[in-house]
Structures are given as structure tokens and as C-alpha cells.
């Protein structure tokens, strides 16, 4: 029995109980890793100037950061009110029909696992290939350049990508402790890579880059001024920009920073393991959004200034469209060109590769936790919830997720149709917005749960804090749903792709109804797992 220590007005006894282990810092690292700052820089710089000419990338990052902060604000109120692991499935299952909760969860998991496969693709495409190519340029050895091109051809891409995904499965199967240890080392290298990129860019000017680029690439491309040639050939091929900021393009290009920023809220998947949940989730989510946004704004401003917006746009336009004078415009490669150092190219690339890696087991974990939760609620086969007695990990769930991502990898690499599918992110954002929409009414529809929330007493303009936060989050999520909808480069609304999204929703509904019937035949009512027990 303790006394009223420290002036506290509570008498505690020594007793056993639940111990939550993840701190605010752990949550921040988890989310920041899943934002994948390096992937954000690489994709924004590759697709931004090329397909959104005139779009201000720095303002786009700012817009995405503010909107994601609003979404995070809404999700924080959800996870504080229901501090359980399982992501939107937990929130949905407490606020809407079970079939809808499962369907939204399935849609979300499908999207994240698809992007997990894409991350493995990008590790090769934006990390490994440019590094090999640059070593070839510097050494004059064509074999390296050929190797850089070979790794992005379909079969090598599929095999290397699948190997990366399987490596993630092996690490996750070894247990959370090993996974977290690996992630912390990878995170450290990734952060160093980003710092190195900024440090490398700082002392140079655009003139330095033009001189270095022309000196290195001139003989390779057999062109006297390759920097100008790339720009002029890109303009001839159709890339157009009048030198003014285009705010419509700025709005649309913000899709690219928004896509990785969704990782900043992924700690909703581990809500049950986080101590001081309100403080930790606030710090973890909003800190990750702020960090990523600030690092992107600095890095992008530096890249745009040093390499030149027009050059970045035309180089990527030519490279991705197969037009004009073609040079791999990946930022890591350009940083290597600027310094003329293969070591710097390799180290910066390694940092980028590490950022992209952070996504992969993180996304797998997100999927694994959700399907284990489904299994616990008996709406998925028991096998998915089985924990290995030796490794203490849900092996079946892990390898199911790995298998799904390998299939996605194959579809992405080998089929023209699936390689164009980027619309699933829209479906995931829509799922989030529905859950945030449910959160607006949650304090009124489930007062018996909400009144136990630590934020229950807080009001804004006379409304419950959760209502206000989820309203803001709902509109921010809707904003990006429609932004993605009207942007054919990032997502769009191709009817065939929309059919795939609708198909995932239908699969979720059918899956739930089939499982419900199977469980009913076993004497189990799956809907009971979701319901609050009424006190009579």
C-alpha cells in the first residue's frame, strides 16, 4: 500500500495489471517510418514537375500536411476513445453495421497491401536501378548501366520485388522484437540518408549542377549541352510551362505528398499497445505529419533550386514517356551527379531504399493485425488468428499477407491493366472518411462508450471534441478523395478501375455474409463480438 505520494490524492496498492509498452517516441518513430519520407521525396520529384507543370511542390506539401493533420486529429479522438489495436475495423465495428466495418477494413487492407507491393517495386525502380546506372556512368562500365536497366525489366523486377516482400515476411515471422530492432536500425540509416541529401545540396548552386551534369552526361549522351537538350526536347514532346505558379496543378500535385502522409496515422493499428494514449497518439501522429512536411519542404525547395524545375519536369517527362533525350531523373542519381561521388550516390540511395523498406513490413503488420482481429471476432477463419507456439507470431496471417502482396507484385509487373491501377488509394481514403463521418455522431449514438473516453468532457463551441475533430477529418478526407478522383495521374476515375474498387467492396460484403452463415451453422453469432453488453 502506497501513501498519497507526491501530494497525490489517491491511495494505490501494489497489484498486477495491464502494461502498455509503446511510448510517444515509439509511436512517433512507427508513424514517421510509415510516412516514408524518402519515398515521398522521390515520388514528388519524379511525378510532380513532369505531370503537374506549374504546380508549386512546396505549397502542395504544406496543403497535404495541413489536411493530413486534420484527418489525424479525427483519428486521434477515435483511438483515444477506443484504444484498441486493429485500426478502422475497431472504430467501424463499434459505430456501424458489422458488415460495413469488415468491408471498410478489407478495402483499406487491400489498398495498403497493394501499395506495399508498389513500395517493393519502387525500391528497385527508384533505389537500386539508379544506383547501378550511376555507378556505370561514373566508371564508364556499360555493364553497370545495363544492370540498372535489367533490374527494372519484368522478371528481374518481379523476383527482386518478391524477394523483398518475402524478406519482410521472414522478419515479421521472427517476432515483433526482432522486427522493431530491424526497423530502428533501418530508420537510423534512412534519416542519415535524408540529412546527407540536404547537406549535399546545400553548398552547391544550379550552375554547379549544370556544369557537373554536362561534364558527366555530355560524352555519354553524345550531346554538347545535355541539360538544355533535355529541356528543349521535353518541351518539343509536349511538356509545357509558362514559368508561373499554377494553383490548380498545385492542388492536384498535393496528392503525391498526401499518399505517403497517410502513414502518419497508422498507429491506430497499435492503439492497444500505446501507453498514455492521448499524449502519445497526438505526439506520434501530428509529430510525424509535421516532420515529414517540413523535411519535404526543405528538400524539395533545395532540389528545385539546385536541379531546376524545368529540368526536373522535362527529364522525368522524357524518361517516363520515352520521348526526347532520356536520363534517369531520380533525385539520388542527380545528387550523385552534382557531387561526382559514387559514395554519396550510394549512401543517399541507401537512405531512400531504407525509407521505402520502412513501408513494407509496416504495411504487412497493418494487414496482419486487422485479419487477426477479424479472426478473433470469428468473421475470418481461425487459422488466421493462430499464434505460433514457438515464435509467438501469427504465422498464417503474416504469410497470407505476404502471398497477397506477391500476387499484387506479379499483377503490377506483368499486366498492363494492373500496372495502371492507382485508384485503390481513393478507396482507402473513402473508407477513412466514412469512419470519420461515423465519428461525428459517435458521442450521440454511443454515449455509453463515449462518456468513458478521456476527452468526453471536452467541448468546442458546445459540441463534443470528437464531433468537431471528426467533422474536420471527414472534410479533409473527402477533400483528398475528390482530389484523387479528378487526378488521372495519381488515381482518377477510370470506369474499369472504379469497377475494381467496387469489386473489393462486394468481396467484403460477400465474405462477411458467408462467414456469418458458416458461424451460424456452428452455433456462433458473429454480430455478438461487436456489441456492447447492455446492462439490465
Amino acid at each position, binding site marked *: 500500500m502506497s501513501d498519497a505520494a507526491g501530494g*497525490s490524492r489517491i491511495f494505490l496498492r*501494489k497489484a*498486477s495489471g495491464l502494461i502498455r509498452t509503446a511510448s510517444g517516441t515509439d509511436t512517433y518513430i512507427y508513424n514517421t517510418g510509415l510516412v516514408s519520407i524518402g519515398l515521398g521525396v522521390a515520388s514528388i520529384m519524379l511525378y510532380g514537375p513532369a505531370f503537374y507543370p506549374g504546380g508549386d511542390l512546396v505549397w502542395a506539401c504544406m496543403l497535404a500536411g495541413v489536411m493530413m493533420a486534420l484527418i489525424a486529429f479525427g483519428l486521434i479522438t477515435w483511438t483515444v476513445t477506443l484504444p484498441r489495436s486493429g485500426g478502422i475495423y475497431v472504430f467501424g465495428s463499434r459505430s456501424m453495421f458489422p458488415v460495413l466495418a469488415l468491408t471498410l477494413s478489407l478495402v483499406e487492407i487491400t489498398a495498403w497491401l497493394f501499395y506495399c507491393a508498389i513500395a517493393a517495386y519502387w525500391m528497385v525502380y527508384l533505389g537500386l536501378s539508379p544506383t547501378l546506372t550511376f555507378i556505370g556512368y561514373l566508371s564508364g562500365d556499360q555493364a553497370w548501366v545495363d544492370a540498372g536497366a535489367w533490374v527494372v525489366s519484368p522478371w528481374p523486377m518481379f523476383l527482386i520485388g518478391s524477394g523483398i516482400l518475402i524478406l519482410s515476411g521472414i522478419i515479421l515471422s521472427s517476432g515483433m*522484437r526482432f522486427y522493431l530492432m530491424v526497423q530502428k536500425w533501418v530508420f537510423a540509416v534512412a534519416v542519415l540518408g535524408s540529412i546527407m541529401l540536404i547537406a549535399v545540396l546545400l553548398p552547391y548552386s544550379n550552375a554547379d549542377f549544370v556544369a557537373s551534369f554536362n561534364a558527366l552526361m555530355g560524352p555519354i549522351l553524345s550531346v554538347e549541352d545535355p541539360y538544355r537538350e533535355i529541356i528543349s526536347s521535353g518541351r518539343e514532346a509536349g511538356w509545357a510551362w509558362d514559368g508561373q505558379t499554377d494553383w490548380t496543378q498545385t492542388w492536384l500535385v498535393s496528392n503525391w505528398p498526401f499518399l505517403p502522409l497517410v502513414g502518419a496515422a497508422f498507429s491506430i493499428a497499435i492503439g492497444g499497445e500505446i501507453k498514455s494514449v492521448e499524449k502519445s497518439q497526438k505526439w506520434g501522429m501530428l509529430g510525424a505529419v509535421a516532420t515529414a512536411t517540413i523535411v519535404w519542404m526543405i528538400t524539395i525547395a533545395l532540389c528545385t533550386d539546385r536541379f531546376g524545375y524545368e529540368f526536373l519536369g522535362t527529364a522525368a517527362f522524357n524518361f517516363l514517356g520515352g520521348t526526347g533525350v532520356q536520363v534517369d531523373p531520380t533525385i539520388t542519381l542527380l545528387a550523385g551527379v552534382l557531387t561526382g561521388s559514387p559514395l554519396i550516390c550510394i549512401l543517399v540511395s541507401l537512405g531512400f531504399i531504407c525509407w521505402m523498406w520502412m513501408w513494407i513490413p509496416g504495411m504487412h503488420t497493418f494487414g496482419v493485425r486487422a485479419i487477426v482481429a477479424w479472426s*478473433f471476432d470469428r468473421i475470418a477463419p481461425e487459422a488466421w488468428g493462430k499464434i505460433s507456439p514457438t515464435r509467438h507470431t501469427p504465422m498464417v496471417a503474416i504469410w497470407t499477407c505476404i502471398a497477397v502482396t506477391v500476387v499484387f507484385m506479379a499483377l503490377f509487373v506483368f499486366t498492363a491493366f494492373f500496372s495502371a491501377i492507382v485508384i485503390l488509394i481513393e478507396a482507402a481514403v473513402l473508407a477513412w472518411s466514412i469512419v470519420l463521418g461515423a465519428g461525428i455522431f459517435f458521442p450521440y449514438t454511443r454515449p455509453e462508450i463515449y462518456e468513458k473516453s478521456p476527452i468526453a468532457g471536452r467541448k468546442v463551441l458546445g459540441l463534443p471534441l470528437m464531433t468537431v475533430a471528426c467533422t474536420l477529418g471527414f472534410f479533409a478526407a473527402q477533400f483528398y478523395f475528390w482530389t484523387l478522383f479528378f487526378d488521372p495521374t495519381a488515381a482518377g476515375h477510370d470506369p474499369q478501375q472504379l469497377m475494381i474498387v467496387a469489386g473489393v467492396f462486394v468481396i467484403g460484403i460477400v465474405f462477411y455474409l458467408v462467414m456469418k452463415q458458416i458461424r451460424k451453422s456452428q*452455433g456462433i453469432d458473429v454480430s455478438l463480438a461487436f456489441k456492447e453488453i447492455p446492462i439490465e
Partner: protein
Amino acid sequence: MFWKKKKKAQGEKLTIFFASDLHGSAICFKKFVSGAKFYGADVLIMGGDLTGKAVVPIAEQSDGSFKSAQSGDEITLKSQDELDEFIKRVNNQGFYPAVMSETEFQAIKDDTPAQEKLFKKLVVERVREWADYAEDKLSGTDIPLITSPGNDDFFEIDEVLHKASHIQYHEDEVTELRGYEILHCGGSTKTPWDTEREYTEEQYEARFAKILPQVKDMSRCIFNVHVPPHGTIIDQCPKLDENLQVVFEMGNPVHLHAGCKALYTAIEQHQPILSIHGHIHEGRGNIKIGNTTCINPGSVYPEGLLQGALVTLQGGEVTGVQLTQG
């Protein structure tokens, strides 16, 4: 696998709703009792650790307001409504509100024996209230409420529970339930908190040696043992140092198994049909040791959510297990 066609179990169906480690949470206990009707259970089994962990003094001030603590901060309650609402919230969190004068609070705040006396008095009162509540809600039904002690339970509650008309309280014995036998064994192995009912592995071996021979048919026996079996996913928890802080290595929390080795051996050797546990709140799960289904529903009582397990037995088989959270 769920699609595998199973031979249909024959015989009378028995549905058990099991929960554990409510630690004084009034709302969770009420949900537990209501769970019988809600889930259609034939029997309620509570795995122990009924008693809570904190007394929250609410000290009346000279101006008529009340001072207390919430989430580590001192708070002032100015109206009767605020006081009533606060008391309700404290009860639901599993704590024990104690309204007293500021003078009484000052007298007791550094007096450990007086605090302990107050604690035990409030714990016994809460258990008595729960026994009355169970009697009120379950009398007239044929749904028994069976329980045994956890490691945190004061010995003072034994008398109240033994006398309760609608609660069957058992320890170190085997009882019968509609064609099944239940082996009751409370307490836990040693913990960092040095709680009320802790036993060494040797003591557990001795207890099992005494109780196991009482089981007539192990294929229809349920182990109701507060501590989970050692070395499984349902007994895993963070390791604590001598200051009761989580131990980290390489920035990661170190986990250990806090279950009972003697129990694991007993399950492995004797293969009861079912083994139900609590104690490790983080250890929510459902595993198999040989053919025995072992369940720990876990506990998140401070949030007012009741985690439980709905288990269906038929013809001497476990035909359904569903972890619940309601």
C-alpha cells in the same frame, strides 16, 4: 480450418461465458452478469481478481466543495451533480471512492495501516454489493455464477463470497457442472508486486498433486486456473525491473512468460477438455496444448469494456470459442 466438415458433436450443449480480472470495475461486473442473457450462456465463470487497485479519497472542503484526483491531477468538484458523476466514473474504473472530510484525509494520507484498513473495508463492501447484484439479477434463473480467487484478491472477500446465495466460490477443489467437472485453482506464481495469493512452482505442483486425483473423467474436465500456462502466448507480458518499470533492450520492451510451468505440465499430461485463465491482461488469446483448448480473454477493465470468452461444449468437445469485447 473453418471449411473442414466436422463430425457433429452429440449431447447437451453447454455455453459458458468466462471473464476475468475485473479489478473492482462496477460496470464490467454488471456487464458480466448481463452477459448471461445477452450471449445466451448457461453458466458464468469469473476467473478471479475481483478486487481493485486504488482508493480515491474525495475530501470535503470548508466551502462545501470536494477535492480529489483524476489522471494524476488534483480536481475540485463544486456541485452534488459533479460529485455523483465523479463517484460513478471512479466506480466504473475499478477504483473505490471514499468521501471524507479534509481533516480525515490529512490524517490518513501518511498512515499506511489506516489506508490498508480502509482499502479492505471498501473492497469487501464492493464484493458484497456485487454478490447482491448477482442475486438480484440471476435468482430465479438456473444460471450459476462460479468464481475462484485471483492473486490480487484479499482473503477478506472469501467469507462474503462463500455466504453469497447465488455465487459458487471454490478454491483447490473439483466441482461438478452439468456433466462436466471444474478444477478450481486460484492465485498466481510470484509477481513483482508481491500480491496477496502467490505460490511458488513447487507449491503449485503440490496443489495439483492434491486436486488432480479428485477429477473422475479428465475428458470432461475444465481447468479454471487463474494463472495461465507458462511459455505460451497467453502468459506473455513485459518484463519489469525492481522499480516496476518496463525493461527495454535496444529500445524495445523485453517480454517474459509469467505463467505457471506446473500447470503447463498438468495440461500437457492430463489433457482436460478446456482450460480457462486470466491474470495476464495483455495475454488475450486462444491456444491449444495438445487437444486442450486454453483461453485467456485478457482484460481492459479501466476502459469499461468487458473482454470475455464464449465457449460452447457439446458431447465432451469444445465446439465453439468466441472472444468477446462488449
